[in-house]
Each structure stands twice: as structure tokens, then as C-alpha cells.
């Protein structure tokens, strides 16, 4: 795990601290004319921050998506929904803590939520297996999808996972089958589903709860077929040293994926990232959910399913010649 602040963030944070110092100096010394200049200084600092962010490489964005301070699903759920009630377990084998779900109210309307859990500190992270679900997590998600369908409630799914877990038990209990069954479930789901990628969208482990009618991405989230480190080992046959090149090559950012028609929208983050101003981030997520949910709830079921089917049918870029 990297240090709390990423390299490109350090000057921004220092700059912010200097401005704060100047502000308190100005307050303590009202006779000085510093206060008048602080506004201009703040505008300059914003410009500098914007400039820094524009220069970020895809590899930088991978680390921003994994940022230790990045808001995780529990804080979004608390900020967006009222009275969430977590529902545990797959009712078969286990209660996988890496993938939670339950019911809650959004703008007074009942919804079912699904959410990867990454944990804020080492102890939490170990408890939730670093956000990597076992098959039971996906089976819990599936039973909650069926639950939502049975009672005609929309699903809101928050994605933030490095990958589906791999170990002996996951293979024994059919990790691949669990994911495949979720894809089939989401393809036939009779209720609307909105997906929000808030951090890392790690391959099949993400897709297993992400085949919605609308897939939205936070500005600095990523979504890829494999983590850049793994891609580096597979393609460059090394120990991950080509991860920065892999991150560039995989085109995993929100802007890339909007262009490929894989996501439907980007939720802009506050300057510097969602962790710099969470209330603002949550507000934007809330209004995005509100907008898309309203659209989807108005659709006839047949139209909803037809649109979802077309949405996924279209994805792919290839050539075709007449033989």
C-alpha cells in the first residue's frame, strides 16, 4: 500500500495548508491587507490543481481510484439512503463481508442496494478480504437481486473491488459459475438496476454486480479486464514492472469507457477527487441516481428489458468484410 497521499497530491495539499495559515494570520492581524489577496491566491491554487489533474496519467488515476482516503461504499450508502437495513448471507453457506447488500429508502422510495466493501484500516480490510468476494458474496448479491425483483424494487449497485477472490475454496465452490449466474440473472432482471463505479472496477469481480440499465462512473474510478499489475505479468511476462504501461494500454478510465460505450455517464468529482470534498461528491451521486432512476421507473418492463438487451448487445469493436 502506498503512503496516504499520492505524489501529485503533495504539492496541492501543501499549498492548501499554506493558504490556511495565511487565512489564520489574516484573521489574527486584521490590520494587514493579506485577506484581500487570499481570494486571488485561492483562485490561483484552484487553477494549479486543475492543471495538475489534467496532467494525470492513467496510472496516476489507478492510484487515485485506490486512494486510501477515497470514500467507500458505507459512507455513500449512509449519505444517499435513509434507514438502510443490511441483509446478510447467501442462505446457502456463508455471509461474505466483501459484498454487502440490503434494503433502504432513496427519496422516500424503497430500493435494494449492493456494495463491495474494502475497509478503511488493516483490521477492517482483513475482515472484508480487501474487497474481494468469494462465491458466497456473488450468491448473496444474486439472492438480493431476486428479492428486489420479487417485490418490484429497483437495485442500486456500488462497485469497488480489485477482483473476485481466488483461492482453493473459491474454485471449489464455483467462483466462475457464481459470476456467470449473476450475469444471467442481471440479463433477465425485471426491475431497473443502476450501477455506480466509485473506485476500482476489477474485472469479472466487478461485472458480477454491474450489468445494469445504467452504468455510471465516478470521474476517477477505473474499470478494467485485469489490474494493470496482472496485465503486465500476462502480456509483458514480468513481475508487474510494466504496470504503468499496462494502465495506459488498458484504457480503464471513465473518459475512455464512455467513448467505448461501456458506461452511460461520468459523475464529476470535486476538485482533487471525491475524498477532498465528500459531501459534494455524495450530492452529485445523489442527483445522478435521482435522474436515472426517474427515467428508468417510467419505462414499461418490456422496454426496460429491450433497452438493457440492446445496451449490452452493442458492445464490441471489430471489423467485418463480406465474404
Amino acid at each position, binding site marked *: 500500500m502506498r503512503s496516504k497521499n499520492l505524489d501529485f497530491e503533495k504539492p496541492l495539499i501543501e499549498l492548501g495548508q499554506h493558504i490556511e495559515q495565511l487565512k489564520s494570520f489574516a484573521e489574527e492581524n486584521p490590520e494587514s491587507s493579506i485577506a484581500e489577496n487570499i481570494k486571488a491566491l485561492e483562485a490561483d491554487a484552484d487553477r494549479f490543481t486543475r492543471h495538475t489533474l489534467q496532467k494525470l496519467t492513467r496510472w496516476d488515476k489507478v492510484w487515485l481510484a485506490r486512494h486510501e482516503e477515497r470514500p467507500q461504499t458505507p459512507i455513500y450508502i449512509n449519505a444517499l439512503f435513509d434507514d438502510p437495513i443490511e441483509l446478510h448471507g447467501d442462505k446457502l453457506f456463508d455471509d461474505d463481508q466483501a459484498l454487502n447488500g440490503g434494503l433502504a429508502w432513496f427519496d422516500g422510495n424503497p430500493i435494494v442496494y449492493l456494495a463491495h466493501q474494502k475497509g478503511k484500516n488493516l483490521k477492517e480490510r482483513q475482515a472484508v478480504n480487501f474487497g474481494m468476494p468469494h462465491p458466497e458474496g456473488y450468491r448473496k448479491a444474486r439472492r438480493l437481486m431476486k428479492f428486489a425483483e420479487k417485490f418490484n424494487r429497483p437495485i442500486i449497485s456500488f462497485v469497488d473491488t480489485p477482483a473476485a477472490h481466488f483461492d482453493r475454496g473459491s474454485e471449489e465452490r464455483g467462483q466462475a459459475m457464481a459470476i456467470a449466474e449473476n450475469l444471467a440473472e442481471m440479463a*433477465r432482471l425485471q426491475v431497473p438496476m443502476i450501477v455506480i463505479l466509485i473506485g476500482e472496477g476489477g474485472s*469479472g469481480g466487478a461485472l458480477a454486480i454491474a450489468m445494469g440499465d445504467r452504468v455510471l462512473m465516478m470521474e476517477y474510478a477505473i474499470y478494467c479486464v485485469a489490474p494493470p499489475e496482472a496485465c503486465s505479468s500476462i502480456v509483458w511476462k514480468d513481475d508487474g514492472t510494466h504496470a504503468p504501461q499496462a494502465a495506459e494500454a*488498458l484504457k480503464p478510465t471513465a473518459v*475512455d469507457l464512455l467513448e467505448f460505450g461501456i458506461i452511460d455517464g461520468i459523475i464529476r468529482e470535486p476538485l482533487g477527487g471525491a475524498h477532498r470534498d465528500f459531501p459534494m461528491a455524495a450530492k452529485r451521486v445523489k442527483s445522478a441516481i435521482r435522474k436515472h432512476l426517474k427515467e428508468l421507473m417510467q419505462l414499461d418492463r418490456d422496454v426496460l428489458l429491450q433497452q438493457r438487451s440492446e445496451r449490452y448487445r452493442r458492445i*464490441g*469493436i471489430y471489423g*467485418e468484410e463480406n465474404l
Partner: protein
Amino acid sequence: MAVSKSVSCRNCSAEIQESAFEEYHKVCPECDHHHYMSADERLRLLVDDGSFESYDNGLYSLNPLNFPDYEAKLQQDFAKTGLKSEVLAGIAKIGGYPTAVGIADVTIRGGTVGSVAGEKLTRCIERATKERLPLITVSVSGGMRMQEGTLALMQMAKTAAACVEHAKANLFYISVMTDPTFGGTTASFASLGHIIVAEPAARIGFAGPLAVASIREQLPDNFQKAEFLLEHGLIDTIVHRRAMRSLLIDLLDFHSDGLPSSSASHREI
């Protein structure tokens, strides 16, 4: 007289006369190891002679991500094999039953699935739905193709959705998994067969070899082999390559609703 060539078994190193190797469908007569088969060989093994009509061979890969060296590597693979297209897809008769078939080939980028394979399989499944045919896929795949990034990942969703439409129409799908079947292929259409059949000792799983190498727990000898999956209740049956066609015909027969079977002699290959 030409000197008869021999091949060496990948598993037990037995020297096998080439003619015998072909006759045994590339299964080692000594240790029963099932060697790779090309999609064409697989087709000849499974479908009625001369009954296959292929579709969508005009699909070809682009490099939508501008991934370094992707085109060159693809060209290399195609040149090496002489193949024109990845995944054989079409309609054939199997024991007289018209069936939509999609057969993968491991030689093109390890049988990984990108936009072309995803599209071809999806059209194949859709054709089965439209023409009310049973579907058989034969998988051999290293998972989703890195060089097509998230576009490749999405082929899981696309093929799975097509399988759902096929199943909704009460049509029958048999998924045959062969060595090796991994990653997103196992985690999408290949696992959605009503019946899943594997070849003996085929490596099948979710996590690929690099991920498995990092697992620090004791793993059983048959970890991620067909027998391991059978033992854990994940697949329906394992069948020897020489009996595969016969099993498929029986299964198609079981689901045929009284459609005529070509002959009673289908149990012999």
C-alpha cells in the same frame, strides 16, 4: 516408403505414431492424455460429415485500444496456424439433429475472447434462438483478451445475455469444456449450459495460472481439473473424447421432442 512420423505425448512422453495419434483423436493411447485439437478437428469429431455451414467468418479484430503489439501478435498467430478467423460458428447436424455450434480454437492468443469471438458466439447463440435450435459450444480459452481491455470484459455480459434469451425460449444448451477453459469464459457463457460436459483432466477454473501460483495454501493434485470440478458438483459429467459425439447425440435425442434421429447406429463413431 515414407518414414512414418511420430509425436511425443505432452504428458507421458510416449512416442505415438502420427497415424495412431490421429486415429485416437489426439488422445495418448498410453496415458489417455487429451491433447489440444484445432476447432476444425473438433468439428470433424463431433458433427455429421459435410453438414456444417459456417457463418460470420468475415469478422476480424481491430485494435480499438491501440494496445502495443496487438496487431503483430494476432498476425503471428494467424500465420502460424493458417486459420482465417477465430472461433468456428455455424449450424451443423449432429446425429441428424440440426444444432448451432460454436467451437473455439486455442491457437489465437490462447483462445482469449475479444470483440470478434464475443460477437461471433453471440450471433451463433442468437441464430440458435431464432431458428429454435439446440446450442453446443466447445470452449478452450485463457479468458478475456487483455489487449481489448474492458471491451473484452463486456463480451461476458453480451454472451451471457444471449444465453438467457436462448434459455427463455426453452431451447437446450450443452457446454463442452476442454483443456484449458479459464477466466471470463468459465465465468460467462461456458457455465450457462443446461448441461456442462468436460474432457478428462481438462484444466477448468476461474483464476489463471499466475493467480494460482500466488495461492499459499495446499492445493490438491487435481486442483482445477475436470475431476476436481466434478467432485465439487460444478459440472454434470466427464466424458472421453472418443465418446463425446455419442453423448451429445444422446443428449440432443433426450431433448428432441420426437424429432427424427438420423439412425440407430449413432453410438458408433
